[in-house]
């Protein structure tokens, strides 16, 4: 009985973790005034981050049909036999390995359209349990926005991610991109400023900085502030090499040509 009680206590803890993690994301909404993540953190402390990270990996595991993708040794998009832990497929050397292969291995495949939603619980939990995992925030938002056509939910994830990760420039970048598509220019201006401020002094990739300056400039232009927009367009152009050609560069150059006389 003592053993069962101990096991039960352990499972209660795990169950509370699972439950309090806010699988029902609406429970943790600002309207309720109750932050489940905070309660959970007090309950099991830093272990939540480890669980969150594991769940994030689990989402990828699900995406590959229940097997681990081996990105290093194989083209992961190729269909092929991998075991449930992603071990590579050298020929089995003994009967145990052979039997395990027959029981636990399966062809690698990607989830089909309607099956992809099976990853949602793991994204929701991963972000809830480890809000500091920027990669989890960005990936969850990407899937919500692009695959499940839920830009509002994606924006919620990114907004919260921005608050939880004040040092991340990638999150406001993605949120700016989302708002730019929605033509919410005031928000884009604010987010681009935020992202550029956070990216200062960091090793941000050039194409991201170009995007940020471009969206910033476009929003300022739409908001009727041509002089500031021109300055932002010129900043974006400054990232290109002299001989470099791209459609975006041509578009920015056209904007500069269009705005330069007006600004003068």
């Amino acid at each position, binding site marked *: 009985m003592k053993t*069962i009680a101990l096991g039960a206590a352990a499972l209660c803890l795990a169950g509370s973790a*699972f439950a309090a993690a806010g699988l029902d994301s609406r429970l943790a909404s600002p309207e309720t005034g109750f932050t489940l993540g905070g309660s959970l953190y007090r309950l099991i402390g830093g272990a939540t981050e480890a669980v969150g990270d594991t769940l994030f990996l689990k989402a990828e595991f699900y995406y590959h049909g229940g097997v681990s993708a081996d990105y290093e040794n194989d083209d992961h998009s190729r269909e092929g036999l991998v075991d449930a832990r992603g071990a590579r497929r050298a020929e089995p050397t003994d009967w145990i390995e052979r039997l395990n292969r027959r029981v636990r291995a399966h062809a690698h495949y990607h989830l089909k359209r309607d099956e992809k939603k*099976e990853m949602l*619980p793991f994204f929701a939990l991963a972000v809830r349990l480890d809000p500091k995992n920027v990669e989890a925030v960005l990936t969850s938002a990407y899937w919500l926005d692009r695959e499940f056509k839920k830009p509002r939910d994606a924006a919620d994830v990114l907004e919260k991610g921005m608050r939880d990760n004040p040092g991340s420039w990638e999150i406001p970048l993605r949120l700016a991109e989302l708002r730019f598509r929605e033509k919410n220019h005031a928000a884009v201006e604010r987010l681009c400023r935020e992202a550029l401020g956070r990216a200062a002094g960091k090793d941000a990739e050039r194409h991201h900085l170009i995007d940020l300056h471009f969206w910033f400039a476009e929003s300022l232009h739409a908001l009727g502030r041509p002089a500031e927009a021109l300055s932002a367009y010129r900043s974006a152009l400054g990232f290109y090499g002299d001989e470099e050609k791209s459609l975006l560069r041509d578009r920015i150059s056209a904007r500069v040509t269009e705005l330069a006389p007006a600004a003068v």
Partner: protein
Amino acid sequence: MNAVFAVARLLVLEIFRKKDAYVAFLLMAVILVYAAGMDFYDERNVVRYLLELGLSLVFFFSVILTAALGARQVPAEREARTLPVLLAKPIRRSEFVAGKFLGTFLAGAAAFTLFYGFFLGVASFKGGVFSAATAGETYLAFLLNLWVLAAVASGLSYFLTSSAGLTLTVLVYFLMNTYGPALKAKAGPFLYFTLPHFEFFDLRQRLVHGWGGLPGDVWAALAAYAFLYALVPLSLGAWRFARENA
């Protein structure tokens, strides 16, 4: 043979009389029902997380109950001084060992059947689409798992105290279920070939991800492995028990 079943029957009665199974069932039910009621961004019929969680709970509780029951049998008889009374009856020691093992297995299987039935009910209610055949195979494979587990727990109970037996059984179970396939590289061939490969019987991924069932030859190999492996701890337990003065 009647003596074997008489001993086994006592164990089946014990698991339901001691209420451990009810506590485990209640806890599992609360977690499962709560998890089933959760909503993810308003998407319907998201169930694989529930299948995975449910199967993990069902397997976990079944393993703990079976291992605890098997591991405490002989030490409890010794402690209560009922062993001499039992052995004074017309029962051979080998029948006693077989009865204790069979009872552990049947009691564990009964609890597992209850848990598994409830789990399938909740998963179906949530709108889960899964193969009934694979669900049946998952059930059968786990029964083989319990067969080996009951043999290990029961066999160890002739050598160890109940807490030591339980700890060792559960430790080996989780070790092998997690690292079994990679144990040769991590811990060498001795442990790899001697410890029971519980991971053979874990068909969770096949059910959750819809991989389908196992071919007949694999089933034959799994059944043969389970039955032959179970003989090892039971024979050792019987050998130890035969040398012991009641």
